[in-house]
């Protein structure tokens, strides 16, 4: 016997020597190593993995991890105005209660019988998203908005049998990077300019670039720079005139108050559901949705799982199952549409809980609340000397660009000072949008009080004009 103290780890029940011996005897081998007979010597790892000494006791482990996490400063401990692909909204307690349930947390890929609840919750999620989006088909969520947009684009290319895509320049830079990689080298991507005074899509530029080779035009509403695009119908009509599809990325939490893209001609709609009851988690809470009309030519191009409602052999009983499973790569590894794998189902369930909690009235009230708060913030910020809201003539939802060009300070420096005051200033976009130069995107939601916004304004005033010596 090994002289070192041999622990029986709580996660490994059959480590108990007597059990192990019994099982080895049953198998008919003397040593576990015999079970690895197929791994030749030259493939064996002879060294020791250089890992830190572990904390087998749960208490020590907890102390260790919490000590590392204590180095983080959160958006609860500070006042944050960060947005741009991840947003701080209130997460109702029941959202966490449900996604922490052992049953949902640890289920995976069971059948529509023993996992009936998984199918039903995701069907209900899709159903509620469908109402918000005014569309009849919504997928089981994918990784994030970037993937959802990428797949929407690839779907458009397959549906139209064309290989060129136009994308509005006001897209999130990260998303554009994801799309570019996902489409390379199969599709060609062209960018459509935006009007630098309104922040909206430059329709003339679109007209000059669209052709009978264009599979679709993709734009976001509200856009990454926060503007509400009210030319949706015009853009969709132009796309349709050329036989292309209208593809729109949107923030679902805006749709209690804004009309959904399907109402201005969008054929495929996508976006992120993180705002709907999912914590930011340093960007770990993202999940993408895709929605279309209920037409075979659209449905058959989804790579995603689509859960449908059906009947059972018992009268009146609802059952659920996969709709057109054969189109997925699980069924056909070559001909399947793109690919399917584990993505973000638990966040889909959570977003469903959120939409059920909010209901029609809640989504409307929330939308209005965010509009009022962000408008107040824009107004107050624009009153600071040298600070401008460049696209103030357009309407915004929760995000807007703040222009520091005339303040003599860079966004980076401003944010540094704000940080010392416990404020996370808006996202610096001076590198990603060089044409706007020294600008940041600020995000204001229902979590911000009047006092929070006033505190930001005061802090900005101080850092721009009172603390030159710092």
């Amino acid at each position, binding site marked *: 016997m090994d002289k070192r103290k041999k622990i029986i780890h709580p996660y490994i029940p059959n480590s108990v020597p007597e059990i192990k011996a019994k*099982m080895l005897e049953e198998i008919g081998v003397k040593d576990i190593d015999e079970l690895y007979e197929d791994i030749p010597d030259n493939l064996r790892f002879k060294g020791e993995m250089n890992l830190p000494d572990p904390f087998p006791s749960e208490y020590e482990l907890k102390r260790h991890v919490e000590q590392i996490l204590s180095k983080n400063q959160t958006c609860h401990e500070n006042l944050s105005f960060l947005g741009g692909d991840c947003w701080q909204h209130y997460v109702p307690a029941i959202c966490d209660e449900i996604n922490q349930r052992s049953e949902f947390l640890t289920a995976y890929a069971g059948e529509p019988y023993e996992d009936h609840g998984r199918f039903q919750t995701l069907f209900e999620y899709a159903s509620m998203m469908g109402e918000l989006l005014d569309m009849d088909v919504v997928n089981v969520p994918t990784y994030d908005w970037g993937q959802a947009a990428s797949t929407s684009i690839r779907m458009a290319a397959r549906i139209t049998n064309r290989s060129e895509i136009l994308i509005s320049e006001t897209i999130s830079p990260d998303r554009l990077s994801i799309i570019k990689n996902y489409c390379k080298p199969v599709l060609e991507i062209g960018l459509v300019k935006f009007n630098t005074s309104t922040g909206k899509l430059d329709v003339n530029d679109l007209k000059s670039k669209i052709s009978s080779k264009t599979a679709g035009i993709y734009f976001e509403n509200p856009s990454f720079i926060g503007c509400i695009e009210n030319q949706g119908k015009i853009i969709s009509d132009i796309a349709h005139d050329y036989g292309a599809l209208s593809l729109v990325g949107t923030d679902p939490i805006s749709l209690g108050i804004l009309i959904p893209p399907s109402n*201005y001609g969008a054929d495929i709609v996508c976006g992120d559901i993180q705002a709907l009851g999912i914590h930011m988690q340093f960007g770990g809470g993202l999940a993408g949705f895709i929605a279309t009309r209920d037409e075979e030519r659209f449905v058959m191009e989804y790579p995603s799982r689509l859960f449908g409602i059906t009947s059972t052999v018992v009268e009146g009983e609802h059952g659920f199952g996969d709709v057109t499973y054969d189109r997925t790569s699980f069924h056909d590894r070559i001909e399947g549409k793109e690919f399917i794998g584990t993505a973000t189902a638990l966040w889909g369930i959570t977003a469903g809980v959120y939409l059920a909690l909010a209901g029609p009235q809640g989504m409307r009230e929330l939308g209005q609340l965010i509009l009022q708060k962000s408008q107040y913030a824009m107004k107050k910020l624009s009153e600071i000397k040298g600070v401008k809201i460049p696209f103030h003539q357009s309407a915004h939802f929760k995000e807007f660009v703040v222009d520091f060009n005339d303040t003599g300070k860079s966004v980076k420096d401003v944010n540094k000072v704000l940080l010392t005051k416990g404020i996370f200033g808006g996202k610096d976009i001076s590198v990603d949008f060089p044409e706007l130069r020294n600008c940041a995107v600020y995000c204001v939601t229902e979590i911000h009080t009047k006092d929070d916004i006033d505190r930001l304004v005061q802090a900005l005033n101080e850092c721009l004009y009172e603390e030159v010596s710092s």
Partner: protein
Amino acid sequence: MTKKTEVRNFHQAKWDEPVIYELSSKGERGILFPEIEKEIEEIVGDGISILPENMIRKQPPRLPELSQMQILKHYLRLSQQTLGADLNVDIGQGTCTMKYSPKINERLATSPKITELHPSQDESTVQGVLEIIYKLDLFLREISGLDKFTFQPGGGSQAILAMASIIQAYHESNDESEKRDEMISTMFSHPSDAAAPTVKGYKVINIYPNEDGLPDVEALKEAVSDRTAGLLITNPEDTGIFNPKIKEFTRIVHEAGGICGYDQANANGILGITRAKEADFDLCFFNLHKTFSSPHGCGGPATGALGVTKELVKFLPVPLVEFNKEKYYFNYDVPLSIGKVRSFYGVIPAILKAYSWIMSLGSEGLKEVSQIAVLNNNYLLKKVLEIRGASAPYAKGRHRIEQVRYSWDELFKDTGVTTEDITCRMVDFGFHMWSSHHPFIVPQPFTLEPTESYSKAELDEYIAGLKKVVEEAYEDPDLVKNAPHRSVVHKIETDSLDDPTKWAITWRAYLKKSKK
């Protein structure tokens, strides 16, 4: 249960729970949001009239209306109608590695110190989470032998896409990406090993197994050419048979100028035993939601942790997380980066849980995990082969690594009872039993993977379940064919799910179509 292992007199929770829309009652509220401050309202007004008229929603979304407790109850009932790994002997979902996801890691990952971080915060405010990311990278370097990891891919399939993208970028850097337009995979590798490179424009050649169940080396030799971009291969494959010639595979592909990606989504049987490095792979990935214990969440959130050799670091998605002996920071200076595959830095809770899990076990513990997973699997193999009608095709008499693809073909020929029937009947005893990825190369397949988490008594209970159902199949096949009988619902009608005039993916579509 009596002392002797028998199946349970089980019945799953059956609440007969309506669809949430059927519970809606006009005017009820699930949650209230704050009222707008009067001072704000006085300044900006209603906030709505400023919007372009054509953008204002006139009809509120037709969401259900329920009070809070009623919503809670609805979802709790649906949770009870879902069979999570925390409740069953979850060894029937082979390839999925349904191990224990420790609760302490859930508590840590749901701390506000993680959940309330915005990804664009200043680096100085997120040193803790960056440390976790960086150190998990170091750990996985040890486990794989490769040189740098990214956690950006949000699942195994996205990691495969990233591998295919990096392989493409590598050839592009040598001006060979147009010529090298073929990717090689094997039939028993995960479907995404073929499907994801197809997205990147590759023609995929799938190597079939030989009579030993292993991908055929001769077929590989025929497949490679100056058009070969690379190899994407799982090992052990779904059969649980370790491919002893894996190094020959990488050699043949390398000699043809290709790059080799190792699908180690499920590495549960080989931690500390054999690594990507010794097999000469250029890339590999681990699923943190499989081997490294992050829970499966009904199908994500998840992480495909992707590692590469130092030659390929320059192609990785940005940003990389680095450490300069003082602080952790993001490195965007990756000259030939493929860009991004997912927003930000990955599924942080999964990364934290994997970190914590490794820190609970250490080097010896990880090895123990694998050894016990393999012990459990071979014990199960022995027991399954004693069951009438069951077999384990290929590699007769040999041991397996972490899972086995079995067959009910003999049982089917004897009784007409299929894998699907048995799956549905196992449900009546509180078990999952999964078949196989498509195509079903093994007839009437089923795949079991016991991991390290289940006790011998639990394995025996599962075996008793299989035995019981097989007994029924021989004695009363209709009982099995009409299952489930004691689950949440009864046999579903599946034809409508493939019929465009009948399928209903949302409640509103259902209402429209059922009226017709």
